[in-house]
């Protein structure tokens, strides 16, 4: 089940095996349920604002200024981190690091659990990570940690995340920020 981990290692793709697929267009996946996008956005904002050491992991698609959309998203993600009181740790490079990564300053898709453990992160948003590495990272995080993961995906989402919101472009991120501001006010944070 795409519930909170640790799910431990399994010889099969856990979420898919349990019948979970990525959400249809216009919808989002919240744990095992398909919900409206706005419902998921509110819940993601709530979890991020109430969890210990909430962190955003921006990936190469937003870290580097390779397109106008990437530049816009960078500005929005920075704003998002301020609204959610979240730290940012970059996933700037997918190559495995030897002898090991510095979990204080980076996250690597080959052993993302090290960063989660080291910083005691209880909720995290993955954004701008290429699909295949997001899949790998989310599976490992769920297998090894109890971190609530959110896949904010520009394509069709990730069933291994606890919450996945699909087709997220700059205008959607702006909408999420507005919702997060409302939730923040409601929570009195």
């Amino acid at each position, binding site marked *: 089940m795409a519930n909170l981990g640790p799910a431990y290692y399994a010889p099969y793709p856990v979420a898919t095996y349990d019948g979970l697929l990525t959400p249809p267009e216009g919808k989002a996946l919240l744990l095992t349920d398909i919900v409206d996008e706005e419902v998921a956005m509110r819940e993601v904002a709530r979890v991020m604002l109430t969890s210990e050491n909430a962190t955003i992991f921006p990936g190469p698609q937003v870290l580097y200024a390779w397109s106008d959309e990437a530049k816009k998203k*960078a500005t929005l993600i920075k704003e998002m981190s301020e609204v959610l009181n979240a730290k940012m740790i970059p996933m700037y490079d997918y190559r495995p690091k030897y002898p090991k990564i510095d979990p204080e300053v980076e996250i690597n898709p080959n052993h993302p659990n090290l960063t989660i453990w080291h910083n005691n992160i209880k909720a995290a948003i993955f954004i701008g990570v290429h699909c295949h590495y997001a899949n790998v990272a989310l599976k490992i995080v769920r297998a090894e940690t109890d971190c609530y993961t959110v896949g904010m995906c520009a394509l069709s989402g990730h069933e291994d995340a606890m919450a996945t919101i699909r087709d997220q472009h700059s205008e959607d991120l702006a909408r999420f920020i507005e919702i997060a501001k409302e939730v923040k006010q409601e929570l009195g944070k």
Partner: protein
Amino acid sequence: MSVDIYKINPEFRDIMPKDIIDLEDNATWGVEKRGISDLTDKKELLEEHSLCAGCPESAALRYILTALPKPEDTIIVNSTGCTSLMFPHIALHTVHSLFGNQNAVASGIKRALEWRFPDKVKDVVVLAGDGATIDIGLDYTLQSFFRQEKITTICFDNEVYANTGGQESGSTPKGQVFKMAPKGKVFDKVRMWELAVTSGCQYSVKLTASAPKSVAKVVREAIFIARELGPTYIHLYTPCILEIGLSASEGLWEMKEQDKDRFVSFKYVSDEAAAYLKELKKIRSSIMSRDTSMAKDSIKIRMPALGGQGAVTAAHIAATAADTEGYYAVSNPFFGAEKRMAPSESYTRLATVPIFDRGGSYIS
């Protein structure tokens, strides 16, 4: 766009590690004048790798990387083997193909790039070992030559299947015994550089990686010719020091020995390619070679060492002493890609005039 993928969005500069910021600030992407002297301080040129200490292949790859005319528009296609262990460590587009398929894959990539970017120059370079190029992948290698694909093929010839424990390859010299070839090789070394010529390569060179500038020059020439005329081939001796029983410091000397023996220089340039190079040299002389000539009022000191901290300190002391006496001085070290006990060099430049050169000094 191709260079922009290394530019960090300003919103994230404060969270990016210094290594990545250095890569943006200090890399040679988009810089026309690149060369061997960039080895000392440019982040993108294979800072670390997982090969054996002293492996000549790691040095050879670094020389090749410095020689690429447009690294941001270059795609390296490689194959399984020791070479493939280095590619995860370099900041360059690389494609790992199935074993032996590298020239077929490179052909497809080159054609697709020509179709996709008709107004841009995109270089495709194949980099594979002798097993992939000459044995298992020979069919694909030669067929790409027959078809006159505009790609550069570089064979790292270590004369053995080193990564799998030491089996003989077609490139192994006759009589050579390896751990997994105890009876000795029974037939002669395949003369691939000659096969390349008869198969239609415009340019075929055999050399060792003992002289960095020679390797860099050959790579540049091969890439320029491949862009315009057709396939080019470089056969580069990078011995497996483990399989032939040498220590980490002996790879360079082995290559120097073979410069006079099995790898005595061979260079074929077709008439068309020779004319093209001549023309290119006229137009772009600044790109084809770096000016490393020595200023009249200066002294260059080169200190080879093993491990190297002693030489580094000595170079630093010499430069500091000269500086104290009112001269201009620059010192800098050159470490190989290996982690320890590897051949290294330190350079000191002393002059009565300002010094603008950096990096290694190879002409004394």
